[in-house]
């Protein structure tokens, strides 16, 4: 080999190495955006929430039973900084989420079981995309439908039976949110159910169990941890859902567990506090960030637990 050729090769190698190095740096930088986003969320929420807690004590926020930020307008009056107890918002959120889960869990789970265990491939090929269509509909559409169609139906049925139901009720928002969660639960459970080894089904069927017995006594118990994980993810979704509750639940922070009452949620309050006329720095505006931080921690906690459960479950059958 001639030395000149050798040199040239070496030169090109060097420039290649520099190029590779540069590209790697760009790639790492891109990947850091995901971390930066999380950091940005935590910092921005925490910073504003901290300023909120300088005005309102943390314990008042966490354990307060009353929520009425409106009174903060009368800033000149003594003791008029408003009531910022998150408990009514939390109960409202949980009430609506509970109604949603009561609707979504049986519907989602039974659909998933039927599709996984009974449906012929052709039926499955038609029904699965249709269910997924339900998942692709924007939540603002669900909200519109809840307010325009479902709430009046509930109100009319109620008044027909002698109940006085406000036009905005936890039930209407919860029902519609439940339907929204059906495809979410059914596709997550579908994964989980399919991860149960076929050999267990064969063993059960082979000794004369009916398919229903096989499902309820073998498949479901085996899939329970995974299903629990999916349900937790769905709960986290329900808690963070905004548009349906903004459009169909109420604004009044009422400490109530009656599904026919109008209740408000954390997300509704965030929207109300930040889309109205806002003075920056007022406790009212900052309160939105405190709620959001609370919401973020809550959903993050649920997600971390849920993902861990599902992960552990899937490894078990790998």
């Amino acid at each position, binding site marked *: 080999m001639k030395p000149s050729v050798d040199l040239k090769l070496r030169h090109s190698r060097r420039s290649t190495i520099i190029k590779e190095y540069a590209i790697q740096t760009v790639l790492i930088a891109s990947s850091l955006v995901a971390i930066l986003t999380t950091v940005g969320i935590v910092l921005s929420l925490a910073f504003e929430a901290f300023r909120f807690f300088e005005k309102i004590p943390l314990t008042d926020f966490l354990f307060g039973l009353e929520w009425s930020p409106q009174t903060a307008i009368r800033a000149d009056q003594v003791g008029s900084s408003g009531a910022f107890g998150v408990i009514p918002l939390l109960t409202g959120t949980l009430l609506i989420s509970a109604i949603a889960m009561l609707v979504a869990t049986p519907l989602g789970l039974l659909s998933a079981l039927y599709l996984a265990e009974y449906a012929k491939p052709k039926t499955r090929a038609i029904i699965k995309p249709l269910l997924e269509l339900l998942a692709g509909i924007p939540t603002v559409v669900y909200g519109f439908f809840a307010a325009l169609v479902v709430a009046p139906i509930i109100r009319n049925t109620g008044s027909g039976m002698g109940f006085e139901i406000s036009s905005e009720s936890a039930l209407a928002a919860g029902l519609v949110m439940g339907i929204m969660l059906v495809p979410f639960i059914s596709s997550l459970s579908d994964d989980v159910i399919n991860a149960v080894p076929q050999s267990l089904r064969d063993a059960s069927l082979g000794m004369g169990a009916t398919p229903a017995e096989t499902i309820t006594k073998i498949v479901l118990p085996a899939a329970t941890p995974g299903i629990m994980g999916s349900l937790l993810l769905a709960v986290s979704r329900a808690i*963070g859902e905004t548009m349906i509750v903004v459009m169909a639940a109420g604004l009044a922070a009422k400490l109530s567990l009656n599904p026919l009452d109008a209740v408000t949620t954390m997300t509704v309050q965030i929207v109300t506090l930040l889309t109205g006329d806002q003075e920056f720095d007022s406790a009212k505006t900052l309160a939105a960030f405190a709620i959001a931080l609370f919401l973020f921690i809550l959903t993050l906690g649920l997600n971390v637990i849920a993902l861990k459960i599902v992960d552990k479950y899937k490894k078990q059958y790998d």
Partner: protein
Amino acid sequence: MTEYILTTSPKLKRRHAKEARFKWYGRIAITIALGFLVLMFSAIIFRGIGAFSQTKIKLEVSYTESIIAPDGTRDPQILRLANYKPILTAALKETFPEATSRKDKKRIYKLLSKGAVYEMGKRVSNDLALIGTHQTIWVTASSDVDLFLQGKVDAGLNENLRKLTDKDIQSVQYLQHEGLLKRKFNTTFFTNGDSREPEMAGILGASLGSFFSLLVCFLIAFPLGILTAVYLEEYARKSKLTDFIEININNLAAVPSIVFGLLGLSIFLGVFHIPRSTPLVGGMVLALMTLPTIIIAARASLRSVPKTIREAALGLGASKTQATFHHVVPLAMPGMLTGTILGMAQALGETAPLLMIGMIAFIVDIPHGVTDAATSLPVQIFLWADSPEKGFVERTSAAIIVLLAFLILMNLLAVYLRKKLERRW
């Protein structure tokens, strides 16, 4: 016992009944979910279909120069905003000669849309030759007339509880009888921005707002998503850093969307002072939200490219980067694009975070770029849904139909791409 060796015993019958019941539970669950889908679609289509056409009133108008352009100007900008009300009033007087009182004249004028004068201005500024001529034109009627024509006004209701009085209804019926009313395809809905008048409100502004936001979102999220996926799948060795990145991505995918809006509010608006209410900041927020979806899809797509491709390229002396970007990434591209389109579809339907960054304002003007104030299609739906006017229920539903059509198109495109371009290894 022996008589039932292989046939169904009573005990077994009970078990089979249970089996059948269980099967039915599944069928019922699916029926309820899909029934809801059908109910929702049909309710929205039923309510919204009317907004795709619009009632017009036939009028004989004289474009009298002394009224439109008393100073003889031919400047389209000035003519657009000239005073057209007397012309319309005069034309209505010919149609309703019996309406002589001031009150009646005012009442009849209200049958026209408040936007009718702007329509006239547009006509004249687009065609200056009209000035001084006499024309038969169709002028947009008010939303109440339109609703009446669709049978959506209950004439049996107490007069005080409806917008059209009995006299109004008589006038409308007279117009109908004379053949002076017609429902035509509603172009206004597709060419206007928002308006206080339902019959003048359109989705062009919101659609363009959505388009510009998605454009920004795509330009940020697509490259970032793909590069991150490439790094995690092709370059990074498993380390604490990559684990942490991965945890972050998975959790970001499940963070409530409204939280991203707050991030945009305090960082993009508060720290970086990006103009409020613009598609630019909207797109940035949507990009952060869509990023996890794109990364997860892109990684799956990269993983499905067989190892042999990488080995073959490296074996020929290609560098890691060459092997990755010349061979692996192009092969994974269809899957990445599919994931990106689905992410974009998700972003298109997103509402809550945009409310936080001020894209909720009442904006009549059509945005021309990413820094013009704008709303988006779902936010427009939210705004109209909040409006008490009956005409807006129709507009809301129609806007939903358009939004869903876009979403379905995007999803079909994704499915098509997957089927057409994806290789099976």
